[in-house]
């Protein structure tokens, strides 16, 4: 198995990349650049999952977040008329600062206050069978709820983007 030193080095490199990219998401003036840094952040988080031996979560993170969500956000930006204005013109700067400081405080408090127990359990083996059984036995309800949610979102998107037929508009 891998030596401890290697894991530590990998963890620090990945964490530094992830944090710097996450900061750049907030700092970048150009929204498209922000999305690209966000995609890099997702890839960095996927790397941390690999360090934790969670291969399946890492691969799905790249597939869904870096691949699908990144493309989705670029489309959302390009379809938004005011997307090219500067972030500085907003009036919500002070409340946003307060809110993010509060969120940071809560996360730091939780991280420091929790007793991080080290589990002896082996890593989850991400074979097709064990994944299928996990989805369809203990986690069947969240799995189904998620699919219903996605279907609702899809119907909503169709309703929003559908043009009215000509004859209905005239009436």
């Amino acid at each position, binding site marked *: *198995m*891998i*030596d401890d*030193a*290697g894991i530590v*080095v990998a963890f620090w490199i990945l964490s530094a990349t992830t944090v710097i990219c996450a900061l750049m998401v907030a700092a970048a003036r*150009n929204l*498209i*650049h922000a999305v*690209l840094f966000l*995609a890099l952040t997702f890839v960095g988080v996927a790397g941390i999952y*690999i360090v934790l*031996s969670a*291969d*399946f979560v890492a*691969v*799905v993170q*790249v*597939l869904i977040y*870096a*691949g*699908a969500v*990144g*493309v989705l956000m*670029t*489309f959302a930006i390009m379809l938004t008329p005011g997307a090219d204005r500067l972030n500085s013109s907003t009036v919500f700067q002070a409340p946003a600062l307060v809110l993010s400081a509060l969120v940071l405080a809560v996360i730091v408090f939780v991280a420091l206050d929790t007793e991080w127990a080290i589990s002896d359990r082996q890593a989850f*083996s*991400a*074979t*097709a*069978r064990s994944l299928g059984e996990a989805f369809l036995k203990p986690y069947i309800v969240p799995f189904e709820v998620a699919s219903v949610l996605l279907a609702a979102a899809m119907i909503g998107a169709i309703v929003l983007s559908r043009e009215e037929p000509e004859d209905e508009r005239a009436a």
Partner: protein
Amino acid sequence: MIGALLAAPTALVTDNWWDIRDLSNLSGAILDLIEDAGGPGWLTYVVGALLGTLGIVSFIGGVAIINIWIERRVVGRMQSRLGPNRVGPFGLLQPVADAIKLMQKEVLQPRVADGLVFTVAPIAFTVPGIALLAVIPWGRNMVLADLDVGIVFLFAMSSLAALAVFIGGYGSNNKYALFGSMRVIAMLVTYEIPIVLSLLGVVMFAGSMNLNQIVLFQADNWLFLIMLQPLAFLIYFLSSSAELNRTPADLAEAESEIAGGYHVEYSGMKFGLYYAAELINAVAVSTIIATVFLGGWWLYKIDEIVPGWMIVIGKIYAVYFVFIWTRGTLPRFRIDQLLAFAWKWMTPMAIINILLVAGEVVLWEETGWSAGLLLPLYIAINGAMTAVLIVAWVRVMAPKFQRYPDRPRMYDGIDVPSLPAPASIGPTAPGAAPARRATV
């Protein structure tokens, strides 16, 4: 885990380090040497990863050079031309000359381009195609990353290409480039669904997402998965040729419409990288098909004589030839045709295929009948179902052929000027030509 180059000896080859019939012997020997010398664990790990990466990258480099020549010669032959035949014997040095030309060219960058994004895009487009090859088994023990979730890794890598193409088009700050990249994204997002669904059938039969396990399933049951899953193979082949942007579906770079698409502003070696990435992606998809549907390094008894990696490369080129064949013979789709093809044909067929496979796998597991009895039966059933489904779907779904379409297909709001009556075509008099609605 990633980077674990396995080094166990096999029955076929000796485990001498110089035995190139299984290249994992050599890397295993190097890794053992490091461990014996008391090197730390992470060093073994890093060297193992580097050795495997070196192998894959050098393979890809050679392939990208040779395949330019192969592709141009084969397409030339199919179109009754000669192809490149001037530089070197049989024109073999043509790719080298092309590469020298590309490297000498000035790398232009538009003044209004988004500099960093413009530079990163070709690299980000090339890397996933190479990274994808890390999980491919080249022999019984020759696999760089023996991931349990290998198939999902393939999907993840191919989904990264969408963002890379988009930033290439966006960074160029050119209308045509953005059009081209939008078309690519529309195609990638659409064809991702049939691709995933078609490989799901394979995963259900093999019972594993590990690519080496899928090859072992085929070796154990003495068949190729293309026999069990002909419909999935067709869907995967057609969808991936759309995802690769190759000629039946290369409307992302449709020269006659949008002047070359997402790489219209690129020149020099940046363009060269896009060009190489297209070849690399084609080889990568051929490799996936060779591994998943055609048995990878296993070939009946022949893999006991011939090294596994040679069999894999042979199968890759067999699949690649079919890709060249479709490129050389088929005309280009229109964008609405291509997207409708995915939604109305591929996706429903893939879902029906999955239902069928699920029933068969459950029957196999619940009854416990022997594979020797059931699998030939499944081969017959699935082959028949493939033929029936394709014929039935064509009967039901195909639009009627119209020499003169009576309405614009893409968008209803366009004024289509009425064409002059087709006087010269057909036996009817000019006045009796079929009436067409000019506007909708």
